[in-house]
């Protein structure tokens, strides 16, 4: 009996020491290819940052270009079965599949990006990209001569709508005459279509463009026509030396490093994180030389105020497109309202399609 007990104890001790020496396996599920120079590219850069930070203590695996919906569950389950203890699923459409798989693997921690559902072992996280959108809106509103801005958008979901609204709000704060025209291309990633949408917007009078799609085609289109553009996801200055004013960028590294550390220390808990300028997850790229000093100063000021918590992007008074007051003076939209945003602020010139 004693021998058997000893053996069990030894076995346990061995298992424990083995699990300490074993690296933490982290899985990533990407919606696009890692080379898209946009959304997925940013997540993969953060994955590399995690590897760099922890070295041998982590082992990361990623699966790219995973279609949203049913098939993603298979991929996520597969990663869980292969022994990944922390899995990041980085697109909105993975929300329900992630929760479904998570129920079957209670010991694995899941982190889902841009969703709104949580579970015991499923946390979610998002970037307050709208803060960057607001800052770039200030730039766009200052630089436009036609008072018309163009926005190439993907799908009318809250994340995208919020970005359009924040951008519009920023632009109208410096230039109340600004209108923002939106074209929905019904795709996250189709460079040719993004370019055509940009051309159409310029034809309709827009002289500063931005996009909520995944390639840099909009920047290139603006460069070719001698207009301005503002990038998204990553610093897109390489695509338009004179056109590119700045970009709203994501930096997921601080968040991924913190989460990996939490799993290693056994302190991981299911949270709903919404990090922004303050945490460094959202930022804007360096300015083009064409952006005047006073605009830079203004943007830096507002950035500092947002970081310090003194300024809310969606602070009242805010009217919607129909002119109805949605947010009163001295009030601002709560996070829950922002997460479900399904209306356009005054100044957006296009009707919001039903999602």
């Amino acid at each position: 009996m004693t021998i058997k007990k000893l053996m069990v104890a030894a076995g346990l001790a061995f298992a424990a020491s083995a699990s300490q020496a074993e690296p933490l396996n982290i899985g990533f599920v990407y919606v696009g290819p890692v080379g898209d120079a946009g959304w997925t590219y940013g997540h993969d850069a953060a994955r590399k940052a995690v590897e760099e930070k922890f070295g041998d203590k982590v082992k990361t695996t990623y699966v790219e270009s995973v279609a949203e919906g049913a098939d993603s569950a298979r991929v996520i389950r597969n990663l869980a079965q292969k022994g990944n203890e922390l899995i990041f699923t980085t697109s909105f459409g993975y929300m329900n599949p992630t929760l479904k798989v998570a129920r079957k693997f209670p010991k694995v921690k899941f982190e889902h990006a841009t969703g709104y559902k949580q579970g015991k072992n499923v946390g979610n996280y998002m970037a307050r990209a709208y803060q960057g959108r607001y800052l770039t809106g200030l730039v766009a509103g200052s630089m436009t001569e036609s008072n018309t801005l163009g926005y190439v958008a993907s799908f009318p979901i809250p994340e995208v709508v919020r970005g359009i609204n924040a951008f519009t709000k920023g632009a109208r704060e410096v230039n109340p005459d600004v209108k923002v025209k939106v074209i929905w291309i019904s795709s996250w990633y189709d460079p040719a279509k993004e370019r055509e949408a940009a051309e159409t917007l310029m034809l309709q009078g827009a002289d500063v463009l931005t996009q909520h799609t995944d390639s840099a085609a909009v920047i290139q289109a603006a460069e070719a026509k001698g207009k301005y553009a503002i990038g998204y996801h990553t610093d897109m200055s390489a695509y338009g030396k004179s056109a590119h004013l700045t970009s709203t960028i994501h930096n997921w590294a601080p968040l991924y490093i913190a989460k990996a550390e939490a799993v290693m220390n056994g302190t991981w808990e299911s949270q709903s994180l919404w990090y922004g300028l303050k945490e460094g997850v959202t930022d804007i790229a360096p300015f083009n030389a064409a952006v005047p000093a006073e605009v830079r100063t203004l943007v830096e000021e507002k950035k500092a105020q947002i970081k310090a918590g003194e300024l809310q992007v969606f602070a009242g008074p805010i009217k919607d497109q129909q002119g109805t007051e949605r947010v009163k003076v001295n009030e601002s939209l709560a996070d829950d309202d922002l997460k479900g945003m399904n209306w356009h602020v005054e100044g957006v010139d296009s009707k919001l399609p039903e999602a």
Partner: protein
Amino acid sequence: MDIDLITNILYATIRTGTPLILIALGEMVCEKSGVLNLGQEGMLLVGAVIGFIAATVTGNLFIAVWFAIFAGMLMALLFGFLAISLASNQVATGLALTIFGTGLSAFLGSNYVGIGLDGMQPLAIPLLSDLPVIGKVLFQHDPLVYVALTLFALVFWLFKYSRLGLKIRAVGENPEAANAIGINVQLLRYAAVLFGGAMTGLAGAYLSLAYTPMWSEGMSAGRGWIALALVVFASWKAERILLGAYLFGFASILHLVLQGTRFEVPPNIMAMLPYVATIVVLVWLSSDAVKTRLSAPKSIGRPYRPMS
């Protein structure tokens, strides 16, 4: 709608249709010879990435276009070896080629993501480009648009008037009979497949050097598949491919342009329009079932094993 807007819509239509024309014409020649190559998307991406890399390295767009064409042909050669010489299943081999090409292009291009390139500039044709409306719509494009139209004329002529076209069709209809009258079936099929690869490689160059001068993974966004469908709906007729491609382009542009107007149709419905319109028109054109059956190459997808 003012004339300026219409001009611009038509201009963009030509640009949008161009890659589809190139791929579909190449695939049509290939299918006419009895070989179904579903690897278009893969060849397209490899053409795009090789063209882009060559342009970045050499700085010469003309050379880069040739690199893209050769890359497409090399992919087609691989397909041809398996599907023609080894008589493998064409559908499976074509799908494998797409998967391989997608992966290969991502691998080759990984160091070229995030790099800008001064793409091909529009080339206004003297005199013709000064014509009202037509001048802007047809004669102020980048060179590859004119190349695509020239190649269309060539393929049209090939099957309408040339002896070679007749031979290709014979091989695609009944390879045994063609062999019996002394046509080298395998050689002709190789030639058709290589031509298809060259055309798709050229379309890849159009995407990464002219249309959106950049490389990012999967940038073709399914155009290879659309072109494949176009060949069938155009019932293997070059002129209908031209029509179908422009129709598709026109509806794609309309989807974007109408959003700026007060014309209120949900954009996701409008996003279906290119597919629906193209299919409806081409199916209507080929509603004569007998004629359509006659235009489909009879031996398509069937490997030919020469008896010796």
